[in-house]
C-alpha cells in the first residue's frame, strides 16, 4: 500500500495496480466497521439468549445445543445472506445508474427483478414439485429474457440511457401485471406465501443458501473491479465514453448481463429488495462521492449494511408481527435517504 497524491491534491492509496482515494478507503472501512458492529448485535437478537461467551465458544468450535443451533443455522446464515444479497442489489443499482445515466435506475425499475419473479412464480405454481435448486436458474432465465428484450427494444449503440430506463419501466409494468394475475389465481395459501416472499424475506437463509449465494458474491467482486473503469466513463455520458475508447456495443450488454446475474441471485435469496438499488448508491454517494470502482464498492457495502440492519429490525419484532424484510428496509433506509437528500440540498444552497 503506497500513499500518493492525485492531481486535485487528494491522498491516493495503491493496492497493486488498483488506485483508490484515501477518503473512499476511509468510507469503505467505516461501512465495513458498521456492518461488523451490526452483525455482532444481530447475533444476539432472537428467542435463544446468546452472549459474548457463546460467540467465543462458537469460534472455538465448542458451541452445541440451542445457542449453537441459533448461531450456526439461523443468525449467522441470515447475516451472511443479507450482506451478500444487499451487496449484489446495491451493486447492480450502481451499475445500472451509470449505464442509464439516471439516478433512478435499479434492477426493479428496469424490470430485471420482475423478470426473475415471474419465472420463479411460474415454476412454483406450475411445477411445485420442482427441486429448489432450479429457482436460481428460473430467476436468471427471467431476468436474462428481460435484459435481452431491453437490448433489442432499445437498439444498438445510438439510444441513450433514458430510452433504456423508459423501456425498462414499460417492461416492468407489464411483468408486474403478470405477477399480480399469477398471485390472484393461485390457491389462497400459496398466494399468501408468494405475497410474503414478494415483500422480501431472509427466512430461507440457511448454510446451504449462503453457499449457493457465495459464488455470485465472489463473482460480483471481480466484476466490480473489471467493469469499474467502463462505468466511470459511462458516468460522463455515452458520447464521451465512446470518445474515450469505450466500446459501448460490447460493454453495455455485458454490464446488463452481469446486472441480471447478480440481481437474480439476490432475488432468489431474499426476494425483491425494492428501492435498495436506488437508495444504497445515493447514500454511498452522500458518504463519499465517487465514480467507477469506488462507487460500486461503497454502494455494495451500503446495501449490505442496510439489509443487515433491516433484518435486525425484522427479527427483533418477529413472533407476533410479520414485518417483511422489504418493509424493514424501507423503515431503516428511507429516513436516511430523505435526510441525505435534504442535507445535500442544504449544502447546495449554502454553496451558492
Amino acid at each position: 500500500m503506497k500513499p500518493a497524491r492525485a492531481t486535485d491534491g487528494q491522498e491516493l492509496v495503491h493496492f497493486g495496480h488498483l488506485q483508490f482515494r484515501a477518503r473512499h478507503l476511509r468510507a469503505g472501512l467505516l461501512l465495513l466497521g458498521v456492518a461488523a458492529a451490526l452483525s455482532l448485535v444481530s447475533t444476539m437478537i432472537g428467542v435463544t439468549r446468546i452472549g459474548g461467551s457463546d460467540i467465543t465458544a462458537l469460534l472455538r468450535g465448542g458451541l452445541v445445543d440451542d445457542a449453537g443451533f441459533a448461531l450456526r443455522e439461523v443468525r449467522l446464515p441470515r447475516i451472511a445472506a443479507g450482506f451478500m444479497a444487499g451487496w449484489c442489489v446495491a451493486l447492480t443499482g450502481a451499475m445500472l445508474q451509470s449505464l442509464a445515466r439516471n439516478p433512478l435506475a435499479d434492477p426493479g425499475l428496469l424490470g430485471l427483478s420482475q423478470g426473475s419473479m415471474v419465472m420463479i412464480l411460474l415454476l412454483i405454481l406450475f411445477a411445485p414439485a420442482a427441486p429448489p435448486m432450479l429457482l436460481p436458474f428460473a430467476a436468471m432465465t427471467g431476468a436474462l429474457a428481460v435484459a435481452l428484450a431491453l437490448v433489442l427494444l432499445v437498439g444498438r449503440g445510438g439510444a441513450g440511457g433514458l430510452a433504456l430506463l423508459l423501456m425498462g419501466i414499460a417492461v416492468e409494468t407489464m411483468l408486474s401485471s403478470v405477477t399480480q394475475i399469477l398471485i390472484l389465481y393461485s390457491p389462497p395459501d400459496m398466494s399468501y406465501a408468494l405475497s410474503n416472499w414478494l415483500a422480501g424475506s431472509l427466512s430461507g437463509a440457511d448454510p446451504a443458501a449462503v453457499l449457493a449465494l457465495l459464488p455470485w458474491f465472489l463473482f460480483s467482486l471481480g466484476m466490480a473491479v473489471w467493469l469499474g473503469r467502463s462505468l466511470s466513463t459511462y458516468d460522463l455520458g455515452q458520447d464521451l465514453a465512446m470518445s474515450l475508447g469505450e466500446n459501448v456495443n460490447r460493454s453495455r450488454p455485458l454490464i446488463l448481463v452481469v446486472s441480471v446475474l447478480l440481481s437474480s441471485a439476490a432475488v432468489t435469496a431474499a426476494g425483491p429488495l425494492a428501492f435498495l438499488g436506488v437508495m444504497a448508491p445515493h447514500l454511498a454517494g452522500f458518504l463519499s462521492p465517487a465514480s467507477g470502482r469506488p462507487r460500486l464498492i461503497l454502494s455494495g457495502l451500503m446495501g449490505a449494511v442496510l439489509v443487515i440492519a433491516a433484518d435486525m429490525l425484522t427479527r427483533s419484532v418477529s413472533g407476533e408481527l410479520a414485518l417483511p424484510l422489504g418493509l424493514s428496509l424501507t423503515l431503516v433506509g428511507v429516513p436516511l435517504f430523505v435526510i441525505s437528500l435534504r442535507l445535500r440540498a442544504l449544502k447546495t444552497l449554502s454553496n451558492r
Partner: protein
Amino acid sequence: MRLLFLLPPLLASHATLAETVTDAMGRGVEIPDDPSRIVVLHEPLLGVPLADFGVDPVGSYGRADDGSSLMAADFYASILGDDAPDPAPRGIGAVGDIDLERLRALSPDLIIGTELDADKADQLTAIAPVYLQASSSGKVRGFETEKQLAALLDRTDAFEDRRAEYQEKLDRLKPIIPPGQSYLAVIVHDKINLVGEMSGAIQAIEDLGYNRLPLKADGPDNALGSTFAVPISSEAFGRMNPDLLVILSSYAGASHDEAGTRAQLDRVMPGWERFLKPAREGRIVWMDSTKVATPSIASAEHALDAIEAWSAQASKN
C-alpha cells in the same frame, strides 16, 4: 464380545422407535413411534384434522407465545369448541415467516407440513423429521387428509370412531333431503370464489346426495379449481342456479354469521338478492367458513348442522 450380545437388542429397540414412510413429495421420513410433540405448518388443513381425532399439536403458525390466536379466526376454538387443544398450541413465528429458534424451543418430535412447504423441509429437518402431507394441491378431498394423518400416527381407530359419529348424524339427516339435487358452494372474500373439493363442508354436502353443478372453471382440467377456492366473476355467479347454493363467510372477515356474509356480498355484488334465483326462492344455506372450511370430520358435522337448520326453516315456510 459382550457388545455382540448387546447389539441385537439395541438394534431391535431402535427398530420399534421409528418407522420410515414416504410423504406426499416422495421423501423418506423417519416417523417416531409415538410422536407427542407435533408442530403443524398449517392450522386449518393439518392442525384441526389432527386435533379432531385427539392428537393436539404443540405449535403452529399465527399464534403468540401464550397460544392466543393472531389470525382473524381461531379455527381450533371455532370448530372443536371445548375439545380444542388445551393448552393451545404455541406460535412458531408470524404467518409465512417461521422463526426456527421458536420452533426448536418447542422441542418437536415431528413437524407436519403441506406439499407447499417442500421448500422449507430441508431447513426444518435440522430440528425434527418433516412429513409433508398432501393437502393443498387438489390431490386429496374430503376426509382423506384426516384419514391419512390418522394412519401415519397409528390412530386409525380414533378416526373411525369419529367417522362413525359423523355417519350417524348423516344417516339421520339424509332421508329429508330430496335425491338427485345439484349444489354449488362459494366463499365471499373481497371477491366471490368457487369452493373446491377439499373441505369438510363439501364432503358433507356430497354425502347427503347433492351433485356438484358442472361449471367451466371447475373440474379435473383445472388444477387450481379442485383445491379450496378459485375466483369467479360476479356475472358467472349471477347466472348460477343450483338446487342448493351454499355461501360461506370469509374466514378473513370480522363477522362470520349470515348477516355479516350478506353485508359482504352486498359490497361485492350489489343487488344480488334480486337477480340470484336461489336467493329469491330460499335455496341458500349460509355457513361459517371458520367452522366448515377445514378438511375434518368436525367441519363436516358443522356443515350438516347448517343444512339441518336450513331444512327445518324451509319446511316451516
